[in-house]
């Protein structure tokens, strides 16, 4: 047992830090740190910066243009990126579709799509959830009916994050209604520019346009866009859900949020003294810090084990549940730390180039909105209740 980073890992951290200092613009990091709105250009800019360095596809093996990093390196990179205020990379192509293509896609599909994910040609979004298929994903009804060299797709997907920017969508579609529900699902790649595809925004409670509904009306999709075998899509989707574990625990994200919380609590005053000196508030901050400190080690234990070839298991469910509880607690504390200045909110102030005097401290505007935005965390990617179901089935044997 050894908790220390190796000399190589420490110098890797230095290298990452130096890269971030030199290549992450203050403009971008300020936006991230203040919780302001990132547009497509911002996200693309950071995507290209990382790709130019060869540090974009941290989870990919080298042969496909990835970094081939160890679990600990990925963890270090994640921590440093969040600490520096780098935008997070858009995960749909990089971390969700790509592993599925590498494992189950044809050679043609790999050769065609993977480089286009790296160079940013294709922006991908995810077509899983439907109005009637949320936690019960296998009840999805969007249908793909084979007609010659094409599937004809009809139906509706929802909660499609950043679908308004997407060129392509990877979808779970129903290709059979026979047998078990899970056995009639296929994994299909659909060009968003195909006639019959319509994107409609869903505005969330913080006023942001982050997710969308996607409608498919007799959309013709070439059979060549099927990944793997017909009716095996459920297996591929499950692989995807357990494959990508680096970010599940939100360690880097929560680290950065804790740093920011401490800063706010030291600047906000209660009875003339810093709020961080208040025993009750200090206790709440300490509790979440202790939890995060433990989860950091849980995360590393699981990642290091995965590096040595252990199969993906219910551990990612544990990381998801605890990681989102911690992140949301940090949102709650940040909101409370502001006191009355959690109340004022200006959507315009979240835009770049906003020049008016802030109401209250400059970091205050986005805090309460972010609290609401992050309520999504315990709902998405398999709600925390679904994660507990997975633990019940796999670990408790009930």
């Amino acid at each position: 047992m050894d908790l220390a980073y190796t000399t190589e890992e420490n110098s890797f951290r230095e290298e990452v830090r130096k890269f971030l200092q030199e290549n992450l613009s203050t403009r971008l990091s300020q936006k991230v740190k203040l919780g302001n709105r990132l547009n497509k250009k911002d996200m693309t800019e950071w995507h290209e910066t990382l790709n130019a360095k060869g540090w974009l596809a941290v989870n990919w093996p080298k042969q496909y243009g990835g970094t081939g990093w160890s679990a600990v390196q990925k963890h270090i990179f994640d921590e440093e990126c969040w600490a520096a205020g780098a935008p997070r990379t858009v995960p749909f192509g990089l971390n969700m579709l790509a592993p599925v293509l590498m494992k189950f896609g044809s050679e043609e599909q790999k050769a065609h799509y993977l480089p286009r994910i790296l160079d940013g040609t294709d922006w991908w979004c995810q077509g899983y959830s439907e109005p009637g298929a949320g936690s019960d994903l296998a009840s999805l009804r969007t249908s793909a009916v084979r007609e010659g060299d094409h599937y004809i797709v009809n139906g509706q997907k929802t909660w499609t994050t950043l679908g308004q920017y997407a060129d392509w969508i990877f979808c779970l579609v129903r290709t059979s209604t026979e047998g078990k529900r899970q056995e009639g699902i296929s994994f299909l790649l659909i060009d968003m520019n195909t006639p019959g595809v319509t994107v409609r925004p869903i505005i969330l409670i913080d006023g942001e346009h982050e997710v969308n509904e996607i409608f498919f009306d007799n959309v013709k999709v070439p059979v060549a866009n099927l990944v793997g075998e017909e009716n095996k899509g459920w297996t591929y989707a499950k692989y995807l859900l357990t494959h990508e574990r680096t970010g599940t625990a939100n360690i880097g994200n929560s680290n950065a949020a804790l740093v920011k919380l401490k800063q706010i609590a030291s600047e906000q005053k209660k009875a003339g003294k810093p709020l961080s000196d208040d025993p009750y508030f200090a206790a709440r901050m300490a509790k979440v810090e202790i939890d995060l400190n433990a989860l950091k080690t849980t995360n590393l234990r699981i990642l290091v084990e995965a590096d040595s070839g252990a199969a993906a298991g219910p551990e990612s469910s544990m990381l998801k549940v605890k990681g989102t509880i911690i992140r949301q607690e940090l949102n709650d504390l940040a909101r409370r730390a502001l006191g009355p200045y959690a109340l004022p909110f200006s959507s315009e102030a979240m835009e770049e180039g906003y020049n008016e005097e802030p109401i209250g401290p400059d970091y205050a505007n986005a805090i309460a909105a972010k609290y609401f935005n992050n309520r999504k965390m315990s709902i998405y990617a398999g709600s925390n209740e679904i994660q507990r179901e997975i633990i019940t089935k796999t670990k408790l044997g009930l």
Partner: protein
Amino acid sequence: MDFTLNDDRRMLSETLERFLADNYDIEKRHGFAMQEDGFSSDMWQQFAELGIIGAMFDEASGGFGGEGADLMVVFEALGKHLVIEPFLATLLGGTVLSQVDGHKALLEGAISGEAFLALAHGEPSSRYELSTVTTKAKQSADNWEISGDKSVVLGGGSATHLIVSARTSGDADDEAGISCFLVEKTDNVVIRNYSTLDGYGAAEISFEKAKGILIGKEDKGFDLIETAYAAGITAISSEALGTMTVATDLTVEYTKQRKQFGVPIGKFQALQHRMADMLIELEQLRSSIINAAGNLKSERNLREREASGCKYLVGTIGRQIAEESIQIHGGMGMTWEYAVGHFAKHIIMIDHVFGDTDHHLERYIALGRK
């Protein structure tokens, strides 16, 4: 970064687990508790022969372990069987002795199972504060004389050698000015021996001009004690993890057997999700123990912060596991006859050893400001 056990520790773990599985079920444990010393001297000798006592100390001290990971392995296994022999008292006393010169023979005696050590530090009004010592030591012509009261001394009744903290200078709450002494049990030492709620031996001890031999340097005893307590926290946290694991396992098993409304109660989602949360928290606790154990040799502030963070989680997670285990068992969890209640009692009582949840949260915050 390496979270695996090396071969020696894996063997230690397997040896101990097998020995306990064969020799230490709950009924036997109840029997051992009824013996004169409050534990089984025979078992203690066997633990010594298996090298389990020596695993708590490094080679320089006559043992063959002494790392945080060794403590984790040993105490997690002990916790799974609610072992009542005086491992913790031996660890505390032995860790004090291992930091100074001149007491190697006594420590070797403890490792071989002949000598019994206890650290008499806490006092009736010190609560959990490590630096609060009012017991006095006065230098006489050829010796030190110790006077004062010590409370809830783990293993104090069965100890052959007492290691006693006493004030040699400074005020009652000062870290400086505390010294450690080796005290023999003479007429000047009055011991009231008892068993704790969860079945472990402890004692109230009064000293009236009892003769003491100085351990280490005068006025420098605090560091010795704090270091021993840091090891103690790693140990008892690991023990708690073992006990909590069994309580959780018993609970999950029970829900598979117990039927109500025509189905095993484990089919009810209201119970399933609570048990899933128990598993999640056990992983959190294991990680926190790894952090404490892995930093036992780190600089003081880091070591103590990790220890306090860990002990805080032992208290909060422990309460969750103990209460849920009883609740999910229903009435059976309340009975003496069924095992889970004994595990729950030990989990909760551990919160009162070396400082509870509130104490360690406050301490964690204070250390963070330094």
